Protein backbone atom coordinates (compact mmCIF):
# COMPACT_ATOMS: atom_id res chain seq x y z
CA UNK A 1 0.00 0.00 0.00
CA UNK A 2 1.81 3.08 -1.18
CA UNK A 3 0.41 6.52 -0.47
CA UNK A 4 -0.32 8.57 -3.55
CA UNK A 5 1.56 11.63 -2.29
CA UNK A 6 4.64 9.45 -1.78
CA UNK A 7 4.27 8.04 -5.28
CA UNK A 8 4.05 11.55 -6.72
CA UNK A 9 7.12 12.55 -4.73
CA UNK A 10 9.01 9.51 -6.02
CA UNK A 11 8.04 10.40 -9.60
CA UNK A 12 9.06 14.02 -9.15
CA UNK A 13 12.42 12.91 -7.76
CA UNK A 14 12.99 10.74 -10.83
CA UNK A 15 12.08 13.65 -13.10
CA UNK A 16 14.43 16.05 -11.31
CA UNK A 17 17.29 13.58 -11.37
CA UNK A 18 17.17 13.67 -15.20
CA UNK A 19 16.51 17.39 -15.64
CA UNK A 20 17.69 17.81 -19.21
CA UNK A 21 16.01 14.70 -20.47
CA UNK A 22 12.75 15.58 -18.73
CA UNK A 23 12.85 19.10 -20.15
CA UNK A 24 13.41 17.82 -23.69
CA UNK A 25 10.59 15.32 -23.29
CA UNK A 26 8.28 18.07 -22.11
CA UNK A 27 9.32 20.25 -25.02
CA UNK A 28 7.35 18.05 -27.40
CA UNK A 29 4.18 18.55 -25.38
CA UNK A 30 4.96 22.24 -24.82
CA UNK A 31 5.22 22.89 -28.56
CA UNK A 32 2.06 20.88 -29.23
CA UNK A 33 -0.02 22.71 -26.63
CA UNK A 34 1.49 26.05 -27.59
CA UNK A 35 0.45 25.60 -31.21
CA UNK A 36 -3.04 24.42 -30.27
CA UNK A 37 -3.55 27.50 -28.09
CA UNK A 38 -1.97 29.87 -30.60
CA UNK A 39 -3.77 28.64 -33.73
CA UNK A 40 -7.13 28.48 -32.00
CA UNK A 41 -6.56 31.98 -30.65
CA UNK A 42 -5.89 33.23 -34.18
CA UNK A 43 -8.94 31.48 -35.60
CA UNK A 44 -11.08 32.69 -32.74
CA UNK A 45 -9.75 36.22 -33.15
CA UNK A 46 -10.68 36.23 -36.83
CA UNK A 47 -14.16 35.00 -35.95
CA UNK A 48 -14.68 37.84 -33.50
CA UNK A 49 -13.17 40.32 -35.93
CA UNK A 50 -15.74 39.35 -38.53
CA UNK A 51 -18.50 39.49 -35.95
CA UNK A 52 -17.50 42.99 -34.91
CA UNK A 53 -17.34 44.10 -38.54
CA UNK A 54 -20.89 42.96 -38.97
CA UNK A 55 -22.04 44.65 -35.83
CA UNK A 56 -20.38 47.86 -37.01
CA UNK A 57 -22.78 47.75 -39.95
CA UNK A 58 -25.68 48.45 -37.65
CA UNK A 59 -28.25 46.13 -36.18
CA UNK A 60 -31.57 44.78 -37.45
CA UNK A 61 -30.36 44.62 -41.00
CA UNK A 62 -31.82 42.61 -43.83
CA UNK A 63 -29.93 42.00 -47.05
CA UNK A 64 -31.36 41.24 -50.45
CA UNK A 65 -28.89 39.67 -52.80
CA UNK A 66 -29.17 38.62 -56.42
CA UNK A 67 -29.67 34.94 -57.18
CA UNK A 68 -29.26 32.13 -54.74
CA UNK A 69 -26.12 33.03 -52.85
CA UNK A 70 -23.77 30.30 -51.66
CA UNK A 71 -24.75 31.26 -48.12
CA UNK A 72 -28.39 30.52 -48.82
CA UNK A 73 -27.69 27.27 -50.61
CA UNK A 74 -26.99 28.44 -54.17
CA UNK A 75 -24.17 26.94 -56.14
CA UNK A 76 -22.37 29.45 -58.28
CA UNK A 77 -21.94 33.05 -57.12
CA UNK A 78 -20.68 34.12 -60.56
CA UNK A 79 -23.85 32.85 -62.16
CA UNK A 80 -25.92 34.65 -59.56
CA UNK A 81 -24.08 37.84 -60.40
CA UNK A 82 -24.39 37.55 -64.17
CA UNK A 83 -28.11 36.96 -63.86
CA UNK A 84 -28.47 39.83 -61.44
CA UNK A 85 -31.85 41.49 -61.84
CA UNK A 86 -31.90 43.72 -58.76
CA UNK A 87 -32.51 47.36 -59.61
CA UNK A 88 -34.19 50.57 -58.49
CA UNK A 89 -37.74 49.38 -58.95
CA UNK A 90 -37.26 46.62 -56.41
CA UNK A 91 -36.29 49.15 -53.75
CA UNK A 92 -39.55 50.97 -54.52
CA UNK A 93 -41.46 47.69 -54.48
CA UNK A 94 -40.19 46.87 -50.99
CA UNK A 95 -40.85 50.41 -49.83
CA UNK A 96 -44.49 50.24 -50.85
CA UNK A 97 -45.26 46.60 -50.06
CA UNK A 98 -43.38 46.24 -46.76
CA UNK A 99 -43.71 49.75 -45.39
CA UNK A 100 -45.05 48.44 -42.06
CA UNK A 101 -41.71 46.85 -41.27
CA UNK A 102 -39.07 48.75 -43.17
CA UNK A 103 -37.44 51.68 -41.46
CA UNK A 104 -34.82 52.69 -44.03
CA UNK A 105 -33.79 51.11 -47.30
CA UNK A 106 -30.94 51.60 -49.72
CA UNK A 107 -29.63 49.99 -52.87
CA UNK A 108 -25.97 49.15 -52.87
CA UNK A 109 -23.25 48.81 -55.47
CA UNK A 110 -19.75 47.55 -54.92
CA UNK A 111 -17.00 47.71 -57.55
CA UNK A 112 -13.26 48.07 -57.50
CA UNK A 113 -11.62 51.12 -59.05
CA UNK A 114 -8.40 53.11 -58.95
CA UNK A 115 -8.66 56.45 -57.16
CA UNK A 116 -6.21 59.13 -58.30
CA UNK A 117 -5.07 62.41 -56.84
CA UNK A 118 -2.34 64.15 -58.82
CA UNK A 119 0.39 61.51 -59.11
CA UNK A 120 -0.87 59.30 -56.34
CA UNK A 121 -3.26 56.46 -56.87
CA UNK A 122 -4.97 53.90 -54.68
CA UNK A 123 -7.05 50.89 -55.67
CA UNK A 124 -10.13 50.94 -53.47
CA UNK A 125 -13.51 49.35 -53.40
CA UNK A 126 -16.14 51.85 -54.44
CA UNK A 127 -19.41 51.61 -52.52
CA UNK A 128 -22.48 53.21 -54.04
CA UNK A 129 -25.28 53.89 -51.56
CA UNK A 130 -28.41 55.96 -51.14
CA UNK A 131 -28.27 58.64 -48.48
CA UNK A 132 -30.34 56.33 -46.26
CA UNK A 133 -27.67 53.64 -46.76
CA UNK A 134 -25.19 55.83 -44.89
CA UNK A 135 -27.58 55.91 -41.92
CA UNK A 136 -28.34 52.19 -42.07
CA UNK A 137 -24.64 51.39 -41.92
CA UNK A 138 -23.95 53.88 -39.11
CA UNK A 139 -21.35 55.92 -40.98
CA UNK A 140 -19.72 58.69 -38.96
CA UNK A 141 -17.38 61.33 -40.28
CA UNK A 142 -14.13 62.55 -38.81
CA UNK A 143 -14.23 65.49 -41.22
CA UNK A 144 -16.89 66.94 -43.52
CA UNK A 145 -20.26 65.25 -43.99
CA UNK A 146 -22.14 62.49 -45.77
CA UNK A 147 -24.05 63.01 -49.01
CA UNK A 148 -27.70 64.05 -48.99
CA UNK A 149 -30.77 62.62 -50.68
CA UNK A 150 -30.77 65.61 -52.98
CA UNK A 151 -27.20 64.89 -54.05
CA UNK A 152 -28.17 61.28 -54.72
CA UNK A 153 -31.16 62.38 -56.84
CA UNK A 154 -29.06 64.86 -58.81
CA UNK A 155 -26.32 62.28 -59.36
CA UNK A 156 -23.84 64.63 -57.75
CA UNK A 157 -20.20 63.70 -58.17
CA UNK A 158 -19.31 63.80 -54.47
CA UNK A 159 -17.25 61.30 -52.53
CA UNK A 160 -16.57 60.28 -48.93
CA UNK A 161 -13.14 58.73 -48.41
CA UNK A 162 -12.43 55.86 -46.07
CA UNK A 163 -9.76 56.89 -43.50
CA UNK A 164 -7.14 54.60 -45.02
CA UNK A 165 -7.74 55.99 -48.52
CA UNK A 166 -7.50 59.54 -47.20
CA UNK A 167 -4.28 58.75 -45.39
CA UNK A 168 -2.69 57.21 -48.49
CA UNK A 169 -3.70 59.93 -50.96
CA UNK A 170 -3.53 62.96 -48.65
CA UNK A 171 -0.86 62.32 -46.05
CA UNK A 172 -0.27 66.02 -45.35
CA UNK A 173 -3.19 67.98 -46.72
CA UNK A 174 -6.80 68.44 -45.76
CA UNK A 175 -8.64 66.75 -48.63
CA UNK A 176 -12.08 68.32 -48.03
CA UNK A 177 -13.12 70.27 -51.13
CA UNK A 178 -10.42 68.76 -53.34
CA UNK A 179 -11.16 66.64 -56.39
CA UNK A 180 -10.13 63.01 -57.00
CA UNK A 181 -10.53 60.85 -60.06
CA UNK A 182 -12.57 57.72 -59.65
CA UNK A 183 -11.69 55.87 -62.80
CA UNK A 184 -12.24 58.55 -65.43
CA UNK A 185 -14.77 60.64 -63.52
CA UNK A 186 -13.93 63.54 -61.25
CA UNK A 187 -15.49 63.56 -57.78
CA UNK A 188 -15.37 66.24 -55.10
CA UNK A 189 -14.40 65.16 -51.60
CA UNK A 190 -17.05 66.14 -49.03
CA UNK A 191 -16.13 63.93 -46.07
CA UNK A 192 -13.78 61.48 -44.40
CA UNK A 193 -15.40 58.47 -42.72
CA UNK A 194 -14.44 57.37 -39.26
CA UNK A 195 -12.59 54.08 -39.02
CA UNK A 196 -14.88 51.05 -38.73
CA UNK A 197 -12.78 48.08 -39.79
CA UNK A 198 -10.40 47.37 -42.62
CA UNK A 199 -12.93 46.63 -45.37
CA UNK A 200 -14.64 49.96 -44.80
CA UNK A 201 -11.48 51.95 -44.19
CA UNK A 202 -10.08 50.96 -47.57
CA UNK A 203 -13.24 51.94 -49.45
CA UNK A 204 -14.81 55.16 -50.76
CA UNK A 205 -18.50 56.06 -50.71
CA UNK A 206 -20.37 57.78 -53.56
CA UNK A 207 -24.05 58.25 -54.31
CA UNK A 208 -25.58 55.11 -55.81
CA UNK A 209 -26.98 56.97 -58.80
CA UNK A 210 -23.61 58.50 -59.64
CA UNK A 211 -21.97 55.10 -59.25
CA UNK A 212 -24.37 53.43 -61.69
CA UNK A 213 -23.76 56.28 -64.12
CA UNK A 214 -19.99 56.31 -63.80
CA UNK A 215 -19.63 52.57 -64.23
CA UNK A 216 -22.39 52.20 -66.79
CA UNK A 217 -24.33 49.72 -64.68
CA UNK A 218 -28.03 49.15 -64.20
CA UNK A 219 -28.20 46.51 -61.50
CA UNK A 220 -27.49 46.76 -57.80
CA UNK A 221 -25.05 44.50 -56.00
CA UNK A 222 -27.45 44.28 -53.11
CA UNK A 223 -30.29 46.01 -51.32
CA UNK A 224 -29.89 46.69 -47.62
CA UNK A 225 -32.68 47.68 -45.25
CA UNK A 226 -33.22 48.20 -41.56
CA UNK A 227 -36.39 47.03 -39.85
CA UNK A 228 -38.44 49.16 -37.47
CA UNK A 229 -38.74 46.57 -34.73
CA UNK A 230 -36.13 43.97 -33.77
CA UNK A 231 -38.76 41.37 -32.93
CA UNK A 232 -40.40 41.62 -36.32
CA UNK A 233 -37.31 40.87 -38.35
CA UNK A 234 -38.57 37.47 -39.51
CA UNK A 235 -41.93 38.94 -40.47
CA UNK A 236 -40.05 41.65 -42.32
CA UNK A 237 -38.04 39.06 -44.24
CA UNK A 238 -41.28 37.30 -45.27
CA UNK A 239 -42.88 40.52 -46.34
CA UNK A 240 -39.81 41.59 -48.35
CA UNK A 241 -39.79 38.20 -50.10
CA UNK A 242 -43.47 38.51 -50.90
CA UNK A 243 -42.93 41.98 -52.34
CA UNK A 244 -40.04 40.90 -54.55
CA UNK A 245 -41.89 37.82 -55.82
CA UNK A 246 -44.25 40.23 -57.63
CA UNK A 247 -41.45 40.95 -60.06
CA UNK A 248 -38.81 38.26 -59.61
CA UNK A 249 -38.70 34.49 -59.53
CA UNK A 250 -37.83 32.78 -56.26
CA UNK A 251 -34.35 31.79 -57.44
CA UNK A 252 -33.46 35.28 -58.64
CA UNK A 253 -32.91 36.74 -55.18
CA UNK A 254 -32.13 35.86 -51.60
CA UNK A 255 -33.23 37.64 -48.46
CA UNK A 256 -31.16 37.21 -45.36
CA UNK A 257 -30.94 38.85 -42.00
CA UNK A 258 -27.60 40.07 -40.78
CA UNK A 259 -27.60 37.28 -38.21
CA UNK A 260 -28.06 34.64 -40.89
CA UNK A 261 -25.18 36.01 -42.90
CA UNK A 262 -23.09 36.22 -39.77
CA UNK A 263 -24.01 32.70 -38.71
CA UNK A 264 -23.03 31.24 -42.07
CA UNK A 265 -19.68 32.97 -42.05
CA UNK A 266 -19.12 32.11 -38.41
CA UNK A 267 -19.79 28.43 -39.02
CA UNK A 268 -17.22 28.43 -41.82
CA UNK A 269 -14.69 30.19 -39.61
CA UNK A 270 -15.46 27.88 -36.69
CA UNK A 271 -14.62 24.96 -38.91
CA UNK A 272 -11.41 26.66 -39.95
CA UNK A 273 -10.48 27.27 -36.31
CA UNK A 274 -11.07 23.65 -35.40
CA UNK A 275 -9.09 22.50 -38.43
CA UNK A 276 -6.18 24.68 -37.30
CA UNK A 277 -6.48 23.23 -33.80
CA UNK A 278 -6.56 19.69 -35.15
CA UNK A 279 -3.40 20.24 -37.17
CA UNK A 280 -1.71 21.57 -34.06
CA UNK A 281 -2.97 18.57 -32.11
CA UNK A 282 -0.94 16.32 -34.39
CA UNK A 283 2.23 17.88 -33.03
CA UNK A 284 0.91 17.19 -29.54
CA UNK A 285 0.53 13.56 -30.56
CA UNK A 286 4.15 13.52 -31.67
CA UNK A 287 5.03 14.95 -28.26
CA UNK A 288 3.16 12.03 -26.70
CA UNK A 289 5.20 9.55 -28.69
CA UNK A 290 8.29 11.33 -27.34
CA UNK A 291 7.03 10.72 -23.81
CA UNK A 292 6.50 7.04 -24.54
CA UNK A 293 9.97 6.78 -26.01
CA UNK A 294 11.64 8.35 -22.99
CA UNK A 295 9.54 6.36 -20.53
CA UNK A 296 10.54 3.12 -22.24
CA UNK A 297 14.20 4.10 -21.96
CA UNK A 298 13.67 5.10 -18.35
CA UNK A 299 12.01 1.79 -17.50
CA UNK A 300 14.87 -0.18 -19.02
CA UNK A 301 17.46 2.01 -17.38
CA UNK A 302 15.86 1.57 -13.98
CA UNK A 303 15.28 -2.17 -14.23
CA UNK A 304 17.38 -2.79 -11.11
CA UNK A 305 15.48 -0.14 -9.19
CA UNK A 306 12.24 -1.85 -10.19
CA UNK A 307 13.64 -5.21 -9.07
CA UNK A 308 14.72 -3.71 -5.75
CA UNK A 309 11.38 -2.06 -5.10
CA UNK A 310 9.63 -5.33 -5.84
CA UNK A 311 11.97 -7.24 -3.51
CA UNK A 312 11.17 -4.72 -0.80
CA UNK A 313 7.44 -5.23 -1.21
CA UNK A 314 6.22 -3.12 -4.14
CA UNK A 315 3.31 -4.74 -5.98
CA UNK A 316 3.14 -4.60 -9.80
CA UNK A 317 0.42 -1.96 -9.39
CA UNK A 318 2.70 0.19 -7.20
CA UNK A 319 5.35 0.18 -9.92
CA UNK A 320 2.88 0.82 -12.74
CA UNK A 321 1.36 3.77 -10.90
CA UNK A 322 4.79 5.21 -10.15
CA UNK A 323 5.76 5.27 -13.83
CA UNK A 324 2.33 6.36 -15.01
CA UNK A 325 2.42 9.34 -12.66
CA UNK A 326 5.86 10.18 -13.98
CA UNK A 327 4.60 10.45 -17.55
CA UNK A 328 1.48 12.31 -16.39
CA UNK A 329 3.61 14.82 -14.50
CA UNK A 330 5.76 15.30 -17.62
CA UNK A 331 2.79 15.76 -19.93
CA UNK A 332 0.69 17.99 -17.66
CA UNK A 333 3.65 20.17 -16.71
CA UNK A 334 4.43 20.46 -20.41
CA UNK A 335 0.76 21.26 -20.98
CA UNK A 336 0.70 24.04 -18.40
CA UNK A 337 3.94 25.58 -19.70
CA UNK A 338 2.58 25.28 -23.26
CA UNK A 339 -0.63 27.06 -22.28
CA UNK A 340 1.30 29.93 -20.69
CA UNK A 341 3.67 30.23 -23.66
CA UNK A 342 0.81 29.92 -26.15
CA UNK A 343 -1.06 32.65 -24.35
CA UNK A 344 2.03 34.89 -24.35
CA UNK A 345 2.64 34.16 -28.04
CA UNK A 346 -0.95 35.04 -28.81
CA UNK A 347 -0.58 38.30 -26.85
CA UNK A 348 2.60 39.16 -28.72
CA UNK A 349 0.79 38.75 -32.05
CA UNK A 350 -1.84 41.31 -31.06
CA UNK A 351 0.12 43.98 -32.90
CA UNK A 352 -0.50 42.34 -36.28
CA UNK A 353 -3.48 40.11 -35.81
CA UNK A 354 -6.52 39.97 -33.68
CA UNK A 355 -6.02 36.97 -31.39
CA UNK A 356 -8.15 35.74 -28.53
CA UNK A 357 -7.58 32.70 -26.34
CA UNK A 358 -11.00 31.21 -25.61
CA UNK A 359 -11.34 29.39 -22.25
CA UNK A 360 -12.40 26.20 -23.99
CA UNK A 361 -9.15 26.01 -25.93
CA UNK A 362 -7.19 26.15 -22.66
CA UNK A 363 -9.36 23.36 -21.27
CA UNK A 364 -9.05 21.40 -24.51
CA UNK A 365 -5.27 21.73 -24.70
CA UNK A 366 -4.85 20.85 -21.03
CA UNK A 367 -7.08 17.80 -21.08
CA UNK A 368 -5.46 16.69 -24.31
CA UNK A 369 -2.02 16.86 -22.73
CA UNK A 370 -3.24 14.85 -19.72
CA UNK A 371 -4.80 12.38 -22.14
CA UNK A 372 -1.58 12.09 -24.13
CA UNK A 373 0.41 11.44 -20.95
CA UNK A 374 -2.03 8.76 -19.83
CA UNK A 375 -2.23 7.02 -23.21
CA UNK A 376 1.46 7.06 -24.05
CA UNK A 377 2.54 6.49 -20.45
CA UNK A 378 0.41 3.39 -19.93
CA UNK A 379 2.40 0.96 -22.06
CA UNK A 380 5.81 1.70 -20.48
CA UNK A 381 4.25 1.76 -16.99
CA UNK A 382 2.52 -1.59 -17.42
CA UNK A 383 5.74 -2.98 -18.83
CA UNK A 384 7.57 -1.77 -15.71
CA UNK A 385 4.97 -3.31 -13.41
CA UNK A 386 5.23 -6.68 -15.13
CA UNK A 387 8.99 -6.97 -14.84
CA UNK A 388 10.18 -10.12 -13.11
CA UNK A 389 11.90 -9.15 -9.84
CA UNK A 390 14.62 -11.82 -10.08
CA UNK A 391 15.64 -10.89 -13.62
CA UNK A 392 15.42 -7.20 -12.77
CA UNK A 393 17.74 -7.55 -9.77
CA UNK A 394 20.29 -9.32 -11.98
CA UNK A 395 20.07 -6.65 -14.70
CA UNK A 396 23.38 -4.90 -15.29
Amino acid at each position, binding site marked *: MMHITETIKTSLDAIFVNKVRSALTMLGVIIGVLSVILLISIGHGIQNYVKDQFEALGSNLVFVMPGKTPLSGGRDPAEAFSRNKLEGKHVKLIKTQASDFVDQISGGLQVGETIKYKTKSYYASVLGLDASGLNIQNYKYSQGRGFTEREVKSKAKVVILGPKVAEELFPNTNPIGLNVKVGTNTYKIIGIAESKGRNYDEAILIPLTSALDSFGLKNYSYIILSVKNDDEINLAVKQVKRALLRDLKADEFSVMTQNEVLDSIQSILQMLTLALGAIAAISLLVGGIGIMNIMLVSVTERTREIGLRKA*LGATPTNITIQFLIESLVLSTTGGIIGIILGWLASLSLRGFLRTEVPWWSVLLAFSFSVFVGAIFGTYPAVKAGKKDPIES*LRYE
Partner: protein
Amino acid sequence: MKAKKELLVVENLTKKYQLTKDLEITALNDVSFKIYKGDYLSITGKSGSGKSTLMHLIGLLDTPTSGTVKLNGIDITNLNNKELAYTRNKEIGFVFQSFNLLKRTTALENVILPLKYSSTPQKEWKEKALEMLKIVGLEDRVNNKSNELSGGQKQRVAIARALINDPSIILADEPTGNLDSKTGKEIEALFEKLNKQGKTIVLVTHDKELAKIASRQIKLKDGEIQK
Protein backbone atom coordinates in the same frame (compact mmCIF):
# COMPACT_ATOMS: atom_id res chain seq x y z
CA MET B 1 15.66 -25.90 26.74
CA LYS B 2 12.32 -24.98 25.20
CA ALA B 3 11.49 -26.10 21.68
CA LYS B 4 12.57 -23.69 18.98
CA LYS B 5 9.84 -22.09 16.95
CA GLU B 6 9.64 -23.16 13.32
CA LEU B 7 9.80 -20.11 11.08
CA LEU B 8 10.22 -21.52 7.64
CA VAL B 9 9.49 -25.08 6.63
CA VAL B 10 10.67 -26.23 3.21
CA GLU B 11 9.31 -29.58 2.09
CA ASN B 12 10.19 -31.55 -1.04
CA LEU B 13 10.95 -28.37 -2.89
CA THR B 14 11.61 -28.82 -6.57
CA LYS B 15 12.19 -26.09 -9.13
CA LYS B 16 12.50 -26.80 -12.82
CA TYR B 17 13.13 -24.35 -15.61
CA GLN B 18 11.92 -24.99 -19.10
CA LEU B 19 14.69 -23.40 -21.12
CA THR B 20 13.49 -24.51 -24.53
CA LYS B 21 10.76 -26.87 -25.62
CA ASP B 22 13.02 -29.91 -25.18
CA LEU B 23 15.46 -28.69 -22.57
CA GLU B 24 14.44 -28.70 -18.93
CA ILE B 25 16.78 -27.91 -16.06
CA THR B 26 16.19 -29.07 -12.53
CA ALA B 27 17.64 -26.30 -10.38
CA LEU B 28 16.39 -27.78 -7.11
CA ASN B 29 15.47 -31.38 -6.52
CA ASP B 30 13.38 -32.47 -3.56
CA VAL B 31 14.92 -30.17 -0.99
CA SER B 32 13.59 -30.19 2.58
CA PHE B 33 14.80 -28.28 5.63
CA LYS B 34 13.59 -26.02 8.40
CA ILE B 35 14.63 -22.64 9.68
CA TYR B 36 13.95 -21.85 13.32
CA LYS B 37 13.50 -18.51 14.94
CA GLY B 38 16.88 -17.09 15.93
CA ASP B 39 18.79 -19.29 13.50
CA TYR B 40 21.94 -18.17 11.78
CA LEU B 41 21.91 -20.38 8.74
CA SER B 42 24.26 -20.38 5.79
CA ILE B 43 23.49 -21.84 2.41
CA THR B 44 26.59 -22.63 0.39
CA GLY B 45 27.32 -24.16 -2.92
CA LYS B 46 29.14 -23.47 -6.13
CA SER B 47 27.75 -21.47 -8.95
CA GLY B 48 24.94 -23.52 -10.51
CA SER B 49 24.33 -25.53 -7.35
CA GLY B 50 20.86 -24.10 -6.96
CA LYS B 51 21.56 -21.76 -4.07
CA SER B 52 20.29 -18.69 -5.91
CA THR B 53 17.11 -20.51 -6.83
CA LEU B 54 16.64 -21.56 -3.23
CA MET B 55 17.26 -18.01 -2.04
CA HIS B 56 14.64 -16.65 -4.44
CA LEU B 57 12.13 -19.21 -3.20
CA ILE B 58 12.83 -18.41 0.46
CA GLY B 59 12.72 -14.72 -0.41
CA LEU B 60 9.28 -15.14 -1.99
CA LEU B 61 10.53 -13.81 -5.30
CA ASP B 62 9.70 -17.06 -7.02
CA THR B 63 7.31 -20.01 -6.63
CA PRO B 64 8.35 -23.69 -6.79
CA THR B 65 7.43 -26.25 -9.42
CA SER B 66 6.43 -28.65 -6.64
CA GLY B 67 6.77 -28.90 -2.89
CA THR B 68 5.82 -26.34 -0.27
CA VAL B 69 7.32 -23.40 1.52
CA LYS B 70 5.59 -22.50 4.75
CA LEU B 71 6.42 -19.22 6.40
CA ASN B 72 5.05 -18.85 9.94
CA GLY B 73 2.72 -21.72 9.13
CA ILE B 74 1.35 -20.15 5.98
CA ASP B 75 1.93 -21.90 2.66
CA ILE B 76 3.26 -19.20 0.41
CA THR B 77 3.33 -21.29 -2.76
CA ASN B 78 -0.27 -20.45 -3.53
CA LEU B 79 -0.07 -16.70 -3.02
CA ASN B 80 -0.58 -14.36 -5.95
CA ASN B 81 1.87 -11.59 -6.92
CA LYS B 82 0.20 -9.00 -4.74
CA GLU B 83 0.09 -11.24 -1.66
CA LEU B 84 3.70 -12.25 -2.29
CA ALA B 85 4.68 -8.58 -2.40
CA TYR B 86 2.92 -7.85 0.92
CA THR B 87 4.47 -10.88 2.58
CA ARG B 88 7.92 -9.98 1.25
CA ASN B 89 7.54 -6.50 2.62
CA LYS B 90 6.58 -7.72 6.07
CA GLU B 91 8.57 -10.92 6.53
CA ILE B 92 11.77 -10.72 4.46
CA GLY B 93 14.69 -8.32 4.72
CA PHE B 94 17.01 -8.50 1.73
CA VAL B 95 20.70 -7.66 1.78
CA PHE B 96 22.36 -7.83 -1.63
CA GLN B 97 25.94 -8.20 -2.76
CA SER B 98 25.79 -4.95 -4.72
CA PHE B 99 23.86 -3.08 -2.00
CA ASN B 100 21.12 -1.88 -4.40
CA LEU B 101 20.63 1.51 -2.82
CA LEU B 102 18.63 4.12 -4.73
CA LYS B 103 21.02 6.46 -6.51
CA ARG B 104 21.36 10.08 -5.42
CA THR B 105 19.11 9.37 -2.45
CA THR B 106 19.99 9.88 1.21
CA ALA B 107 20.73 7.03 3.60
CA LEU B 108 17.58 7.96 5.49
CA GLU B 109 15.37 7.83 2.38
CA ASN B 110 16.87 4.50 1.39
CA VAL B 111 16.08 3.02 4.78
CA ILE B 112 12.53 4.41 4.64
CA LEU B 113 11.83 2.79 1.24
CA PRO B 114 10.28 -0.50 2.52
CA LEU B 115 8.00 1.51 4.84
CA LYS B 116 6.48 3.18 1.80
CA TYR B 117 5.05 -0.17 0.74
CA SER B 118 3.90 -1.04 4.26
CA SER B 119 0.97 0.11 6.34
CA THR B 120 3.20 1.98 8.78
CA PRO B 121 1.87 5.53 9.27
CA GLN B 122 4.04 8.13 7.56
CA LYS B 123 4.71 10.08 10.74
CA GLU B 124 6.61 7.12 12.20
CA TRP B 125 8.87 6.63 9.20
CA LYS B 126 11.69 8.97 10.05
CA GLU B 127 11.96 7.97 13.69
CA LYS B 128 12.03 4.29 12.77
CA ALA B 129 14.64 4.79 10.07
CA LEU B 130 16.88 6.81 12.40
CA GLU B 131 16.63 4.01 14.95
CA MET B 132 17.71 1.44 12.36
CA LEU B 133 20.60 3.59 11.20
CA LYS B 134 21.71 3.82 14.81
CA ILE B 135 21.67 0.04 15.15
CA VAL B 136 24.03 -0.30 12.16
CA GLY B 137 26.20 2.54 13.46
CA LEU B 138 25.47 5.15 10.82
CA GLU B 139 23.71 7.80 12.90
CA ASP B 140 26.22 10.39 11.64
CA ARG B 141 25.62 9.59 7.94
CA VAL B 142 21.85 9.96 7.90
CA ASN B 143 21.67 12.69 5.28
CA ASN B 144 24.54 11.54 3.08
CA LYS B 145 23.49 10.44 -0.37
CA SER B 146 24.25 6.88 -1.40
CA ASN B 147 27.09 7.93 -3.72
CA GLU B 148 28.77 9.73 -0.79
CA LEU B 149 29.07 6.53 1.23
CA SER B 150 31.82 3.90 1.28
CA GLY B 151 31.07 0.29 0.38
CA GLY B 152 30.84 -0.76 4.01
CA GLN B 153 28.58 2.17 4.82
CA LYS B 154 26.36 1.33 1.85
CA GLN B 155 25.98 -2.22 3.09
CA ARG B 156 25.12 -0.93 6.57
CA VAL B 157 22.39 1.24 5.04
CA ALA B 158 21.13 -1.83 3.18
CA ILE B 159 21.07 -3.81 6.44
CA ALA B 160 19.21 -0.98 8.19
CA ARG B 161 16.74 -1.07 5.29
CA ALA B 162 16.38 -4.85 5.70
CA LEU B 163 15.66 -4.45 9.41
CA ILE B 164 13.12 -1.68 9.28
CA ASN B 165 9.93 -3.74 8.95
CA ASP B 166 11.20 -6.12 11.64
CA PRO B 167 11.06 -9.09 9.25
CA SER B 168 11.06 -12.76 10.25
CA ILE B 169 14.13 -13.47 8.14
CA ILE B 170 17.11 -11.42 7.03
CA LEU B 171 18.17 -12.88 3.71
CA ALA B 172 21.72 -11.90 2.79
CA ASP B 173 23.09 -12.76 -0.63
CA GLU B 174 26.92 -12.61 -0.65
CA PRO B 175 26.78 -9.54 1.58
CA THR B 176 30.58 -9.17 1.78
CA GLY B 177 31.27 -10.04 -1.85
CA ASN B 178 31.89 -6.46 -2.91
CA LEU B 179 33.81 -5.41 0.20
CA ASP B 180 37.47 -5.59 1.21
CA SER B 181 38.23 -8.16 3.89
CA LYS B 182 38.44 -5.65 6.75
CA THR B 183 35.08 -4.11 5.95
CA GLY B 184 33.76 -7.61 5.27
CA LYS B 185 34.68 -8.60 8.81
CA GLU B 186 32.84 -5.57 10.19
CA ILE B 187 29.69 -6.59 8.34
CA GLU B 188 30.12 -10.17 9.58
CA ALA B 189 30.34 -8.81 13.11
CA LEU B 190 27.22 -6.78 12.58
CA PHE B 191 25.32 -9.88 11.45
CA GLU B 192 26.54 -11.75 14.49
CA LYS B 193 25.39 -8.93 16.74
CA LEU B 194 21.97 -8.90 15.11
CA ASN B 195 21.70 -12.67 15.47
CA LYS B 196 22.52 -12.40 19.17
CA GLN B 197 19.71 -9.88 19.45
CA GLY B 198 17.39 -12.59 18.17
CA LYS B 199 17.28 -11.93 14.43
CA THR B 200 17.00 -14.91 12.12
CA ILE B 201 19.62 -14.66 9.42
CA VAL B 202 20.06 -16.69 6.26
CA LEU B 203 23.40 -16.14 4.58
CA VAL B 204 23.81 -17.26 0.99
CA THR B 205 27.41 -17.49 -0.14
CA HIS B 206 29.93 -19.47 -2.12
CA ASP B 207 32.61 -18.56 0.43
CA LYS B 208 33.15 -21.58 2.70
CA GLU B 209 35.06 -19.55 5.31
CA LEU B 210 32.26 -17.00 5.56
CA ALA B 211 29.71 -19.81 5.83
CA LYS B 212 31.42 -21.06 8.95
CA ILE B 213 30.38 -18.05 10.99
CA ALA B 214 26.81 -19.32 10.77
CA SER B 215 25.61 -21.72 13.43
CA ARG B 216 24.05 -24.05 10.86
CA GLN B 217 25.08 -24.81 7.30
CA ILE B 218 23.30 -26.21 4.31
CA LYS B 219 25.50 -27.26 1.42
CA LEU B 220 23.95 -27.54 -1.99
CA LYS B 221 25.30 -29.51 -4.92
CA ASP B 222 23.50 -30.03 -8.22
CA GLY B 223 20.25 -28.93 -6.68
CA GLU B 224 20.34 -31.28 -3.73
CA ILE B 225 21.35 -30.91 -0.09
CA GLN B 226 24.60 -32.64 0.76
CA LYS B 227 24.60 -34.42 4.08
